[in-house]
């Protein structure tokens, strides 16, 4: 990841004049954390979301909880888990639910406030493709597939998407395949199937942050330090709208960086 040069950010310019340089991962984690304010339960895999939730727990949102698709709730791992298949996530957790309970009762039951997803492609209204590049029958590249993403999209109150590479092949006008549909396309294609949740409200990329407007369209809300709105528009496959009052993404604060580096991920497992 390219390190960004730290610059005083908008909200904490005075305090952070001496903030150190930060990496893209640190920025993504800190930004994700801020958007989690007021959230109770996050459904996420391992990686940047883990850092964001851990940071929120240690700063703004001590009661926030991460629920893993494996069924683990209220994890208290003695060290940062290396993979979702880390035994330390299970030991000492508050609950390990069965898979029918986790996917049926917790996820479909509407208990998740924010679901974190990644994808190979995202479109203007936040539909995601994680199945295939090219044609499904004879793919150019076979991707892993939905996993739980289709359920997370359909059932979380809102969804955050982290995209490490913002470019026109990932932010596309039209998906090659729609694995996890936005509520908008869901209602359009299957109007009688009740939708719950707002779909993708927030996309955090290496260039900036997109937020959904009232129609669900993803629009540029902030640009990261050193990035221009034009650069983001150029890197986006659809005509990207810019929200009024576009600002620069606040940089990680010294306190956030300290927590991430020295308490949460001292081994730099995810802070690559």
């Amino acid at each position, binding site marked *: 990841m390219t390190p960004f040069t730290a610059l005083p950010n908008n909200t904490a310019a005075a305090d952070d004049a001496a903030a150190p340089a930060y990496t893209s991962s640190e920025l993504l984690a800190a930004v994700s954390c801020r958007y989690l304010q007021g959230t109770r339960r996050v459904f996420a895999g391992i*990686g940047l979301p883990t850092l964001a939730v851990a940071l929120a727990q240690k700063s703004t949102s001590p009661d926030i909880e991460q629920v893993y*698709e*494996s*069924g*683990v709730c209220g994890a208290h791992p003695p060290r940062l888990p*290396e*993979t*979702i*298949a*880390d*035994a330390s996530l*299970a*030991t*000492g957790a508050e609950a*390990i639910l*069965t*898979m*029918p309970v986790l*996917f*049926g009762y917790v*996820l*479909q039951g509407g208990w998740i406030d924010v679901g974190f997803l990644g994808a190979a492609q995202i479109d203007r209204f936040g539909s995601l493709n994680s*199945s295939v590049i090219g044609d*499904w*029958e*004879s*793919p*150019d*590249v*076979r*991707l*892993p*597939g*939905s*996993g*739980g*993403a*289709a*359920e997370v999209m*359909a*059932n979380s109150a809102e969804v955050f998407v982290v995209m490490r590479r913002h470019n026109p092949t990932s932010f596309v006008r039209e*998906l090659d*395949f*729609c*694995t*996890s*549909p*936005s*509520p908008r*396309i*869901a*209602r*359009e*294609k*299957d109007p*009688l*199937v*009740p*939708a*719950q949740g707002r779909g993708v409200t927030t996309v955090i990329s290496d260039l900036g942050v997109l937020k959904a407007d009232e129609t669900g369209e993803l629009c540029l809300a902030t640009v990261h330090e050193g990035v221009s709105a034009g650069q983001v528009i150029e890197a986006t496959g659809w005509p990207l709208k810019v929200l009024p009052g576009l600002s620069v993404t606040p940089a990680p604060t010294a306190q956030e960086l300290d927590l991430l580096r020295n308490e949460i991920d001292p081994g730099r497992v995810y802070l690559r």
Partner: protein
Amino acid sequence: MIQKQYSLQDAVAEFVKDGDTVALEGFTHLIPFAAGHEIIRQGRTGLTLVRMTPDIVADQLVGAGAVDKMIFAFTGNSSVGSLYAIRRAVEAGGPGSLALEEYSHYGLLARYQAGAAGIPFMPVRSYAGSSLPEVNPNLRKVASPFDPGVETYVVPALNPDVAIIHAQRADRHGNIQSWGILGPQQEAAFASKRTIALVEEIVPDEVIRSDPNRTAVPGFAVDAVVEVPYGAHPSFVQGYYDRDNTFYRSWSAISKNPERLEAWLQEWVHDTGDHAGYVAKLGPDFFAPLTPEPHLSTPVNYGSVR
């Protein structure tokens, strides 16, 4: 007493046939690698592999030519990198390529649930607007008889020929107990016509009966119980051994090169003869660094009549 204890060789020979639909389950945890290897050793072909998360063991089975079709929800894993045998088999296209039937996690889990519960289909709360129903005719809509203005997607029951699972322990009657991440094993076992359960250890009846709520699959739903220590390596068994992340990271390079993959299968599957041979080849000190410190559950009191 009904004989349930088998060697892994005999269990696979008796209960897994060419052309079978095989549910090989375990969600990150308790993946029955040893059974996958034994299926390769015995040269099974034409299998339909059902697995929510086809990963290295699926790549090995596909690479060995055992699998014609895969029913799945997520294949690959960020810490594995690509599964090249599967990708080659899928991206090849045309005759001889690996057929796919694609779901999301709960869609496939719900197929097991319906299969286990003897109902024709199970409603799920997803798939509206998705492309998946266009490529998978098993994702269909039904109108609610309680509100004609409401539809739901449903998936049909799935009843594999055989389920293969791994667990921490069982008694000789096949009562299977596991803890940690449980995955879809209970559903897969009840949905399947036959069930093979691999366990780290077969324990005295009294151990199982001291904690009956821990039994995930009762003996009557298990056809073969097989004691296979370290049978889930390189995946993990909560409380017994951690995941071999080194192996996971190494796999992509092996799988990328068909000759290297074939050599690996020869060396680690065929030439080892059986899982004991595989463990012996890993070496006597191999599992020491992967063995966790004890962290015991607080016993609960079931109570006994006075």
